[in-house]
């Protein structure tokens, strides 16, 4: 770790985008390498996500970008009163993106984006000390976004489109801190829902007050994912009429919050580009994770979250070092939406500092290889989740958390 930090200090390329809550900011290797800025950068079809209004200013007729990241996220938990210690065992996440834009006329471009801005995959050792809150969770949401981009003048364009989301969730936790079957196996429940769909939209605009200066804004709507016939599977339940748990279906809703981005970019001496983005994520829609079991004998599970709206401040630099190479680096500060007393181990995110870097290699006139790397650093934090209840009495779960994430990414860009 020290070595990595040293390298960072030397100004080589590192950057991270792993945002608060279950937002995963990995929507393009070029942008990620610049601190995941891009609302005012005209560069590639990554603008389908960052700012559809920019697409119409792309020079090439056809622009395609695709990429994948490997998310290595790590959580360590300890409690200095009891000596409890655990490291998460989360598998590598692999968020993907694919963007294409086509310049239909001088003033109109059309595009399509497929990307995964929300998701979470966390796995702890089964029956760990916080297993009554989560053993493992895998949350996925795939956004599919047809897009138009319209040039109103050389200085002003607008863009946007509908978003179709396909989501799934798989969540396992123990029913409480102590219930077991006769052999001591902890009673637990898995809720699983796939094929959850809903619609949303995105709208954006771009101003170009000077040739080398752009200002952009993008708003992506909130989308509420409603699972209404998921499977709830109960395991290791005592064989007794005193326990009501039987397999059933469940209903739950999970919000994918709206996000507003404002930003600007400035190009200097042809080779240097500086970008700044401000994100406001409207997390206050996430009040509570409520699981409503169909079987009336099974008590519903209410898990207050009470997230607050949060901001992210992003900075990025690009340097065209040679015809063949472009270097990028960036930084962003990601404010956690989690409030004091609501720090749940399923998304244990406090404020983070994120360092990004990347390189693009031009192979001929049409093809680019985009590589990026993100390192997310979370300060060690003493925190607790105070809203788990036993017999109506809150039982806080607290300790010290330390998390980080390493995200190497690779992409290709094709231009024609």
């Amino acid at each position, binding site marked *: *770790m020290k*070595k*990595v930090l040293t*390298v960072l200090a030397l100004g*080589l*390329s*590192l950057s991270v985008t792993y945002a608060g809550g279950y937002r995963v900011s990995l929507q393009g290797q070029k942008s990620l390498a610049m601190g995941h800025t891009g609302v005012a950068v005209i560069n590639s079809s990554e603008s389908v996500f960052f700012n559809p209004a920019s697409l119409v200013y792309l020079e090439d007729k056809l622009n395609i970008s695709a990429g994948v990241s490997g998310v*290595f996220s*790590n*959580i*360590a938990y*300890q*409690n*200095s*009163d*009891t*000596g*409890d*210690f655990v*490291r998460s065992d989360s598998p590598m996440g692999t968020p993907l993106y694919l963007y294409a834009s086509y310049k239909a006329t001088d003033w109109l471009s059309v595009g399509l984006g497929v990307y995964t801005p929300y998701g979470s995959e966390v796995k702890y050792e089964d029956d760990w*000390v916080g297993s009554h809150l989560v053993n493992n969770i895998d949350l996925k949401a795939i956004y599919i976004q047809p897009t138009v981009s319209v040039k109103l003048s050389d200085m002003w364009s607008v863009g946007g489109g509908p978003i179709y989301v396909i989501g799934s969730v798989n969540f396992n936790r123990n029913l409480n*801190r*102590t*219930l*077991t079957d*006769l*052999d*001591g196996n902890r009673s637990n429940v898995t809720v699983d829902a796939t094929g959850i769909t809903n619609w949303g939209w995105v709208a954006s605009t771009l101003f170009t007050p000077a040739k080398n200066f752009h200002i952009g804004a993008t708003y992506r709507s909130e989308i509420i994912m409603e699972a209404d016939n998921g499977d709830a599977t109960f395991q290791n339940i*005592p*064989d*007794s*009429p*005193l*326990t009501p748990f039987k397999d059933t279906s469940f209903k739950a809703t999970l919000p994918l919050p709206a996000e507003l981005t404002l930003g600007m970019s400035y190009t200097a001496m042809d080779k240097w580009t500086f970008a700044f983005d401000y994100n406001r994520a409207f997390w206050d829609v996430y009040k509570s994770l409520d699981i409503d079991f169909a079987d009336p004998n099974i008590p519903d599970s209410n898990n207050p979250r009470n997230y607050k709206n949060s901001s992210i401040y992003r900075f990025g630099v690009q340097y065209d070092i040679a015809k063949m*190479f472009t270097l990028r680096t960036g930084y962003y500060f990601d404010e956690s939406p989690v409030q004091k007393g609501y720090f749940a181990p399923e998304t244990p995110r406090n404020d983070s500092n994120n360092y990004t870097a990347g*390189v693009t290699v031009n192979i001929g006139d049409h093809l680019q290889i985009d*590589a990026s*790397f993100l*390192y997310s650093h*979370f300060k*060690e934090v003493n925190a607790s989740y105070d809203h788990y209840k*036993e*017999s109506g*009495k809150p*039982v*806080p779960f607290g300790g*010290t958390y*330390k*998390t*980080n994430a*390493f995200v*190497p990414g690779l992409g290709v860009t094709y231009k024609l």
Partner: protein
Amino acid sequence: MKTFFRYSFALLVVGLVSCDPEFDSPVTDSGYFSHGTADFSKYVAVGNSLTAGYANGALYITGQENSYPNIMAQQFAFVGGGEFRQPLMNDNMGGLLINGAMLPGFPNRYVLSAKPDGSSPSPKRLEGTPTTDVANHLSGPFNNMGVPGAKSYHLGVEGYGNIAGLATNPPAANPYFVRFASSDNATVIGDAVAQSPSFFTLWIGNNDILSYATSGGSGVDQTGNLDPRSYGGNDITDPNVFASVYSSQVDALTANGAKGALINIPEVTSIPYFTTVPVNAIPLDANTAAGLNAQFGAYNSQILPVMVQMGVITPAEAAFRKINFAAGQNFPITRDKELTDLTNILQGPPFNLPAQTATLLGQLRQVNGDDLIVLPASTVIGSMPDPTNPLVVVGVSIPLGDEYVLSKAEQDRVTAASTAYNATIQALAGAKGLAFVDVRSQLARLADGGIPFDGGMLTSQFVTGGVFSLDGVHPTPRGYAFTANLIIKAINRTYDATIPTVNVGNYGTINFNGTY
């Protein structure tokens, strides 16, 4: 540019292999928690059922995993503690077999069963054939030397683990020790000392009073009798015998300089076995009460005064023996073997009672508020042994057996003995510089209001209090965790250590299973 790629790749590799977040001060670092002046590398626990992890009227694997020594050993691991081996049972049923047949007196564990609609939850023995055969010998040594049923003087008895001793009457051996004794003539304390523990706990003496108490005082108070070989199973051990064997055990365990903790003996009134069944469990209406008073009128107003006049009983005993019912909750009648037996006298003049009536009245009294009624009486009081005669009701028309009632006099004997044992334990701990664990006062707090924990209140309430298992005597995993914390705190105080305690809320209570 090649160099650039080489560095990038190196960077990536460094990043991915060193990516585990590190705490500024990890609890897993040696030295984060301190062992103080004690050495926990070899911990041996010596004791009885409480040390073994016995619960719900049986010994079984998950109970053993939650024994207080095993919980403590896991915390000792933070301060240099080593492996902790236990003589695990073969299953989670708990009963014992001998050469494939059920060993009488060692049934399966209790579970909380209920009617199919979930009503009337009640402790029931788990059905099924157990698989732990005492003839299958385990090879030790074992760090947990807890032997259910052992009294203080049993720990030094040669042959206590000899399977042949199970066939004698009374048995000369203990089936739990038979499973893992190092040889036929091994002693519990010998097998413990042979492991050269660097740290030990000793919790023994509970059974020296407990079997007397749980049997309603059926045994004999042997105070004054210094030969334990002549004791019966339900007797109270002489305090001097206790002091002698206990101090020799402490001497043996500390001979190589080992540090340790000595744990004292709780008061029986702290445990739900004696506090769950109310002393006045008989509900009566005014008519029934009046009818009963009429039946016992002659006993109260003629027999008892005449017996006083004849000098057979004292006026105080006469008053103590009077029967009186009233509308509402009533004390049951009982046969108290410590009362003067009038059976023969009543069959002679002046009363010339028939033998059956004379036997009924011979040692008759009514339970009072100073008595304790034991848990097994819950299914006996108010029962009707003769289904054809609804007038024959235990506690009302026929006396509750002496074995169900622990009288004030019997309680006083138990208290006197346990007070003496505890004085010995505390004095030895002080003299030897060992940690002293006052479980007695803590269990008294559980019985008197309770002790808060993060999930509510720990109390000694049966079934719901969280501390005691369904046998009413032995703790639940949560109760054992509570005990482990008491011992850890005493160790930390005595040896200047900082061993972390556990969160008792993470430990379970009672198990639900099945219907009846």
